[in-house]
């Protein structure tokens, strides 16, 4: 079984298993869309994949290495995450926040180029000097994603990135994800409730329902909720 990320008999959950043991393999260049009702374990699965919370059982391999054996720094070279926590500090600008994404590479010269590229990709050039308390939720989301892009990892994991965006921004966001995953050969994993939009751009779909995960290639069949 080849794949950049491999899941071997993965049991999802904090204390109690909530999804049947999962086997899967995902390559770079994919846009993986994770769907399912609230509370089925999407966020927990994402926290396992990012290495923040260890799974109950089973193995996650990334680039043929056991994720749980990686150091925090090494993990940060592979995986960046975006969650929904908003911060509104009045002394941090959009640009400052994107620069924080380079934390793991402090003091290296190529830092500027990754920061600029991330700002350009997310289209936040016009607001780069604004402070975080002066931007909208949608702008915050873009800034936060740019911060993860600046980390320059192979994998980006996003928990409901489209939640606070208006309709055109949602379309633009998933189109962006598709382009980034294709052009920069990254694996992007995003959970979402905006399936109608996401299915136009995703390349791989995992739907969580009744404690198991169905895996599809696009286009998507009728889903059971």
């Amino acid at each position: 079984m080849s794949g950049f990320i491999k899941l071997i008999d993965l049991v999802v959950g904090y204390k109690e298993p909530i999804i049947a043991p999962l086997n899967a393999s995902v390559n770079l260049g994919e846009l993986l869309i994770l769907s399912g009702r609230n509370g089925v374990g999407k966020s927990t699965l994402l926290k396992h994949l990012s290495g923040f919370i260890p799974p109950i059982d089973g193995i996650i391999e990334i680039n043929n290495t056991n994720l749980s054996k990686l150091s925090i720094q090494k993990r940060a070279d592979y995986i960046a995450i975006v969650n929904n926590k908003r911060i509104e500090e009045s002394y941090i600008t959009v640009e400052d926040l994107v620069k924080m994404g380079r934390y793991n590479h402090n003091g290296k010269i190529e830092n500027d180029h990754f920061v600029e590229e991330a700002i350009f990709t997310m289209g936040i050039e016009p607001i780069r000097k604004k402070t975080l308390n002066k931007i909208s939720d949608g702008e915050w989301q873009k800034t936060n994603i740019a911060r993860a892009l600046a980390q320059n990892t192979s994998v980006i994991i996003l928990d409901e990135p489209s939640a606070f965006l208006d309709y055109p921004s949602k379309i633009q966001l998933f189109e962006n994800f598709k382009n980034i995953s294709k052009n920069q050969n990254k694996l992007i994993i995003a959970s979402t409730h905006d399936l109608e939009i996401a299915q136009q751009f995703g390349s791989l779909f995992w739907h969580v329902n009744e404690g198991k995960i169905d895996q599809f290639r696009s286009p998507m069949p009728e889903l059971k909720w």
Partner: protein
Amino acid sequence: MKINLNFLILTLVLITLTAVSLIIVPQIINPFNAIESDWFILKMYRFPKTLTALLVGSALSMSGFILQQLFRNQLAGPYILGVSSGASLMVAIVLVLGINTWPLLGHISLSLAGILGATLILLLISSLSLKYGYGSIILLFGVIISMITGAFQSLLVSLASAEEIKNLSLWSMGSFNQVIGTDLVLLVIAVVIGLAWAYFLMNPLSVMILGDEVANSMGVNTRKTSFQLLVCTGLITGVATAFCGPIAFVGIAVPNLVKILFKSVQFKTLLIANCLLGSIMTILGDIISSLDIWGFQIPINVTTSLIGGPFVLYILFNSFKK
């Protein structure tokens, strides 16, 4: 550019206040025309007092800044979180048992007791915050812990002799006058170590404002960083409290003022700014305490509370407006 200007102004203010504290208050000593007794006062009294004020101001403001970031609560500080009271209780135990008069261990026992008390409370508060979050509840925990340690301290007072009671109550009012000789050297070492240690933890701490999960994914060992910062804060707060008593409001007011003056994301800059402004506040407080016009020395806690208290109220009102 603006940051450099702020630094310049703060440094000049600090130097001026230091000079005032050394040669003007309470009586003017002209260094060019000083007689032997003047030099004696300078060397044995005013210099240690001013240096102590500078170190304690830095220490408390640094710990306030670190705690406010770590607990994500702008009203956190060593005093309100019960850290100072934890240190106080341990120091009171040492004083009443007379451990500080033992040979060898005597000198260092007060500092060790302070560090131990402060660090234990910090670890307790931090484990509570893991379970109950970072909101106002954490401040309430701190206040209640203060009351409990205060109760034990009262119990000690009722058991102590008249001489011990006098020592204890003088110390608990706060004073920069008592730290001389070996004690002063210990205070210098602790604060310098604390500052250097904290300085190297500022970059990871600045990323931790994004939350533990994101900071972790960015390569920050959040547990290790938090633990080190707690011990570092325990060290400087513990030693400062052991020698000067619990000092109110410095650790909560100064970091907020720094935040207003320095709109910077560079935590290293903010840390140094906290040291400068903290020193300014304590030296200013001490100058006001020692003014000749009062006819007696006002306890330092009274002045820091009167300077810092209204400002903290202002911060509190502002945070509700949002």
